[in-house]
């Protein structure tokens, strides 16, 4: 395609898929791995079988030492890069970071991305059918932890026969990355933790609790058994609205919406939607309901709340004691959900544990969501970090 046409397409803000596809891993598909054995969960319960939805980009080398495991955040999925079809309007959730010559360079690395255990995008979760009863699990699904999600990812890594890998993730994905480094120190060579924390603080637990309560209070919730009836969409969409506020920050919200009104000139003096920010949140809530399971939201937020490496290992230093990994810790200046000081705590523990660690706080007005938006700086840092000898 001649440059002029490409340039025009960009200025129109309407990138033809053909163009976008060229800079990406292209057409990809979600695959499934079924593990028929049982795993032991943090709670002590046995669980199985497990299905894992995953995608891979790039090629695994003969030595099987060029794998990067990408770990998604709360509501992500296995589709982190590329397009499922030519007609796809949206690429995978971290497409700007994963692909040829991108931060996670698929010319060089074999990138694996899987849906989290407890999720609702192909990996076994509360909306899956329990083979023993023939019914969906609902709330009979066991309460899981971040460590359990890692246990399940490990099944997939074993399936590929991979013994050395790089792990990377933002937010809850960062928690999984740390959990990987702590649980499988002999496997992980490099760990990238972005906008994350070694334990959920009271404030983030509080927001998750409000989200879960919004779901519980929806009369359609029916104790998690709603799959054959009306969906608790009010509750789930309110949970998402609350969550979404925590992903932004005052500055980014002010810039994006200010006090602007939604499709009107004056205040209406009723309780409909007056402000753009209200309309935006409602849109976020409603579109989320279409793609996400309310029970999964409950289980995964609980796993995030339970996450506490310090409690698990006695101290953060001890958690990383056996690790042979190099670490890259990134935070964002305006992130108040997982603020910089929590990334500093991780860094300090790694320093004390005498690990190779670099830490950078990226100036950004985008709040917690910055890890899904600030691509240039992240790419610059991550590329260099991956190049470094470990």
């Amino acid at each position, binding site marked *: 395609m001649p440059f002029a046409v490409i340039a025009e397409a960009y200025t129109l803000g309407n990138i033809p898929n053909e163009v976008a596809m060229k800079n990406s891993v292209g057409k990809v598909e979600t695959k499934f791995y079924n593990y028929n054995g049982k795993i032991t969960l943090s709670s002590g319960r046995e669980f199985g079988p497990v299905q894992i939805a995953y995608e891979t980009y790039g090629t695994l080398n003969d030595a099987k030492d060029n794998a990067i495991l990408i770990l998604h955040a709360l509501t992500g999925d296995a589709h982190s890069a590329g397009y499922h079809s030519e007609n796809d309007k949206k690429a995978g959730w971290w497409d700007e970071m994963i692909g040829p010559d991108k931060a996670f360079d698929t010319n060089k690395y074999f990138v694996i991305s899987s849906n989290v255990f407890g999720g609702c995008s192909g990996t076994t979760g509360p909306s899956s059918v329990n083979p023993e009863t023939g019914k969906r699990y609902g709330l009979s699904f066991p309460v899981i932890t971040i460590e359990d999600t890692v246990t399940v990812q490990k099944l997939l890594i074993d399936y590929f026969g991979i013994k050395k890998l790089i792990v990377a993730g933002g937010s809850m994905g960062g928690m999984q990355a740390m959990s990987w480094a702590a649980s499988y120190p002999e496997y992980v060579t490099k760990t990238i933790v972005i906008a994350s924390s070694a334990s959920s603080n009271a404030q983030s637990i509080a927001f998750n609790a409000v989200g879960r309560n919004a779901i519980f209070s929806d009369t359609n919730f029916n104790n998690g058994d709603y799959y054959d009836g009306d969906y608790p969409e009010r509750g789930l969409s309110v949970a998402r609205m609350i969550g979404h506020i925590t992903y932004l920050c005052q500055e980014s919200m002010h810039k994006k919406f200010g006090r602007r009104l939604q499709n009107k000139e004056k205040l209406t003096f009723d309780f409909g939607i007056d402000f753009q920010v209200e309309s935006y949140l409602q849109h976020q809530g409603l579109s989320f309901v279409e793609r996400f399971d309310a029970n999964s939201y409950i289980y995964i937020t609980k796993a995030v709340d339970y996450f506490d490496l310090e409690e698990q290992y006695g101290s953060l230093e001890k958690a990383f004691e056996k690790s042979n990994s190099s670490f890259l810790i990134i935070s964002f200046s305006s992130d108040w959900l997982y603020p910089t000081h929590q990334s500093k705590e991780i860094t300090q523990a790694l320093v004390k544990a005498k690990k190779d660690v*670099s830490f950078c*706080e990226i100036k950004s007005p985008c709040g917690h969501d910055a890890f899904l938006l600030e691509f240039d700086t992240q790419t610059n840092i991550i590329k260099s970090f991956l190049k470094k000898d470990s």
Partner: protein
Amino acid sequence: MNFSDALHLKYNIICELIENGSHILDLGCGDGTLLKMLAEKKHTYGKGIEISQENVIKCINKGLSVIQGNIDEGLEDFEGQNIDYVILNQTLQSVHKPDFVIDEMLKTGKKVIVSFPNFGYWRIRLYLLFKGKMPKSEMLPFEWYDTPNIHLLTVKDFFDFCEKRHINILKTILVRKARPIKSKFKRYFADIFAEEVVFVISG
């Protein structure tokens, strides 16, 4: 001699002080030039601490390990790490609590290397005497109101500081035009002829 050549020569002075394979910590490591040089020439290992995002990224680009942070907050995390050399290169004059930072360095490293521009250099003295204005030079290019150099000092000041605090001075290298000055009367004329100075000290 251009600026970058001079810088290179000055870094070389520090490089020569350090044994092969040493464990180092470079405070205020800037864009990582010295750390990189030490790693290449002396096969050192260790980290840098740097306050600015731009410089932190430049360090990471050089394949170095660097932690974004403020050295005025102390080095507690690095205690007991068996660090051979803690380096504070051309940064002492811009920290908020120089005495605290030096204490922390002495606690953290077996040896400490401190270098700073000498405010007692004769040109600086004459500048103030004749112009009556805050001295500016190639090393101190800032205006009084925008300078990061908030704790300027002379070589004599540092000698006094070490004496009062019982800090051992293991080596003093006076530097002029980016090269060590060879003089028998270092202690007495240092304050006049040295543009800058490198000290190796221990607690």
